[in-house]
Structures are given as structure tokens and as C-alpha cells.
């Protein structure tokens, strides 16, 4: 069955027809055409599809599009400013090596944002809890946690640098 829903997508009020069985992830990627939100497992295990609904992080792969009616939806595309200036969390991921292949990054950043919007100075424990449902297979999480801590004001003076460029090329340490 189809139904009409209204919601606010990254700040823009929208009204559209959807099918009952669409997931929110399907709505975002296939119907709205925003591919920043990723599909990993499709079963709520990996967190790659994390978006924010009314301030709360949810797995869009297990959330029916019909349930977004009347709510506010934020995806990774809603973070940077209109002129392309990155959100502080995005910037911190870039600066602290929180990104390698990038597949988990949108989900990680959305989980981090949902946390920091409520608790701007969240300590490491809360950061770990907030991203416990986001899998990353590249970074080993340390740089991701550092990236979020740098924004929450709990960052180290010297971030853990594990890879950097020298004149001879990329180096890991």
C-alpha cells in the first residue's frame, strides 16, 4: 500500500508518496538519491546506515519509512554548511585519521552527532557507548574515538598518529 508522508529532511520540509514496506534507508538512497547513508549488513548489526530521527540515532535499515511521518530526519548530507564548510565532527575525523575506507564514516559521524548534540562534552566512556553499534574494519577505533574526543573537549594534546606522509611516501607507525 502507498501513503503520503510529511517530514523534514536535512532542514527541508518534504511531502511524498511512499510504499508501506520501504525502509527509511531505501527512501533516502533509492528514492531521494542521497547515497551518503550506507547499507552494510541490513540487519542492525553494523550501524553504517545510522541517521538521526528527532534527535536520536537509529538504524535506517530497520526503520520503516512510514514511521518518519511528522518527524525530522538528518543524514550525513545535512551536516556540512551550504558553502561546503564541514561540520566540526567531520573536520575532526579528517584531521585525526578517523577515516580510512570511509564506509563506516557517515554512520559513525551520525552516532557521534546524536551524542554530542545532547552531551557536548561527552567523556570517552559515553563516546564508546554511542558508537558501540557502529563497526569499522579499518581504523581499530582509536582514531575514531580520538576524532570525537577532540570535538567533545576531551582530546589529547598529541593525537595518536598511526600513519603520516613523509618525503618518501606514506608511513605507518
Amino acid at each position: 500500500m502507498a501513503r503520503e508522508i510529511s517530514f523534514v529532511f536535512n532542514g527541508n520540509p518534504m511531502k511524498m508518496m511512499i510504499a508501506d514496506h520501504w525502509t527509511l534507508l531505501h527512501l533516502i538512497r533509492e528514492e531521494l538519491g542521497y547515497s551518503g547513508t550506507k547499507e552494510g549488513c541490513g540487519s542492525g548489526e553494523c550501524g553504517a546506515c545510522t541517521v538521526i530521527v528527532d534527535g536520536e540515532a537509529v538504524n535506517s535499515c530497520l526503520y520503516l519509512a512510514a514511521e518518519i511521518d511528522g518527524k525530522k530526519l538528518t543524514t550525513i548530507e545535512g551536516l556540512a554548511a551550504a558553502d561546503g564548510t564541514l561540520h566540526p565532527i567531520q573536520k575532526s575525523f579528517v584531521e585525526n585519521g578517523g577515516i580510512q575506507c570511509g564506509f563506516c564514516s557517515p554512520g559513525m559521524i551520525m552516532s557521534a552527532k546524536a551524542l554530542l548534540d545532547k552531551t557536548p562534552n561527552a567523556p570517552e566512556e559515553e563516546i564508546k557507548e554511542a558508537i558501540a553499534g557502529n563497526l569499522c574494519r579499518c581504523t581499530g577505533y582509536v582514531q575514531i574515538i580520538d576524532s570525537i574526543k577532540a570535538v567533545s573537549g576531551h582530546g589529547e594534546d598529541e593525537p595518536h598518529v598511526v600513519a603520516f606522509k613523509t618525503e618518501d611516501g606514506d608511513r605507518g607507525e
Partner: protein
Amino acid sequence: MRQFTYLTPKTLDEAISLLESHGERARYVAGGTDVLVKIKEGKIAPDYLVSLKHIIGQDRPFLNHETGELYIGAFCTHRSIEQSPLVQHHYPILHDAVKNIGSVQIRNVATIGGNLVNAVPSADGAIPLIALDAKANIYGTKGQRSIDLRRFFLGPGQCDLDGGEILTEIAIPPLAPRTGGAYTKHGRREAMELPMLGVGVLLSLEEDMTTCAKARICLGVAAPTPFRALEAEKQLQGKIVNEENLGEAGRIAGQESKVRDSIRGVAWYRREMVGVLVKRMGLKALERAKDKPK
């Protein structure tokens, strides 16, 4: 995903009549974090999903100050229970359990009622609630009924709900004075893991603050359904709560367990860990009973 029609009734009666009119082709859904996975995996194929999310009612734990009873609506999300100051301060055994279910993303959506009606042996939410002597309030075409939550689970994936009946609420009787409780989920990692074991211990002390007046030892994944280790509880009652007596109660609880070998752990290890964790949770419960906020 497979096509279905999504129905959003506003009342319990409307939900029941929708389910009954579509019979086998319909299924209730609340948070959907289990039902949608089952549909995607092809384990179930309903043509109609009857949502219980839009039914008007309490969505936060609620304490009746006159009777001291705590009510938790079945459609409360795990997150709302976890973040309830009431639960954090007075029911830490329940807080221990809900804060480790799934991930934040899952807990924001998944409901306690959904966790219970799935009736998996590992239902983290069930163990502390059984330890707290909770009752399940159920609504159906024949009206309202209430049963002890420990009798609600009939077998793996089976619970005591007929046809269109809906689990609407969990009612927890007033806590005895000088009560403390603790729950732990034992597994290889903390997040996103089904437990290899779930152990909840609730202790009420005599006025001397050392003798056990009442004990509840409740285990998950140690049998086909969550269960209370009655012999172990009996062993502890009237005894001084200390490492030795808790260790003995744990050993008995291990014997009472019907643990089995599975992908998450072997039986002998589980039995051994029941003993270890009953003792550990008992000591934590003792500490909490002593520091209880007045």
C-alpha cells in the same frame, strides 16, 4: 523488502480487531528491530504488519507513589527505560540489563515488550524483571489478565499469548526494604552481542544488614527459558550474605541450570560461570542494598 501493508491503530481494541480480521497473514510489530530482520531473512512473510507504536499510552516507566508499584509500558523503548532516573536510582538491576541490549541505535527503537514476547532464552530484559517478581499484564478480546512473568515463557520463541493478545505492561511490586540487585550479561564482547549467560541476583536483607531475608537468582541462556534457581535461592535465605554462602548458592544454581553446548559457549563452562557470576552479582547486590538511596 517483501511487500506488506502497514497498519497503525490508535487503540488496543482496534489493533486486536485488525489482527483477527487478517488472521495468519497479519503480525504485530512494535520497534520492528526483530520483525523486520525476520521478514528480510524470509523467516516470516506477513501481508499485514499491525503496529503497536501508535497506541496512545505511557511510554515511560511510571511509579505509583501510593502502592510503590512500578509500571513499565510494553511499548517503552529500552533507551527510555535506561535513561529513566527512576530506574537508574531504584532498579539498578534493570538498568544493568537494558543498557547493554544491542546498541544505542537499537535501544532507541526496540521495545521491552518486543524483547519479552520474542521469548528467546537470552532475553536480557526478562531476567531482572523476573528477579523483581514482575507481572505481565496482557490484553485480549476476553479482557485484561495478569500473570507472573516467570510463567510467561513456555519455550524458546514461545510465550503465553493467545491469538490476538497483546502484552501491554509490566508491573513490578514494591521493593522490600534493604533490597539491592545486579545483573550481568556474559559474552565475548560488550556491545551487539547475545549473551552466553545472563545472571541476575536480587537480595533483601534483614535489619542487621547482613542476613538474607529474600533472594532471587534468575538465569538466562542457562535453560530453554529464563528461569529462577529456586534451590539456590532457598539455600541463601536466612544465611549471612558473604562470599562463601554466595559461592555455595552459585554452585547450586549451576547444578539447577540446563545449560547446553552452543556456538556461543560450551555447557561445562557455562555451568562453571553461573557459579562465578551468581557470587559476583550477589556481592554487588549486597553493596547496593547497603548504599541504597533513602
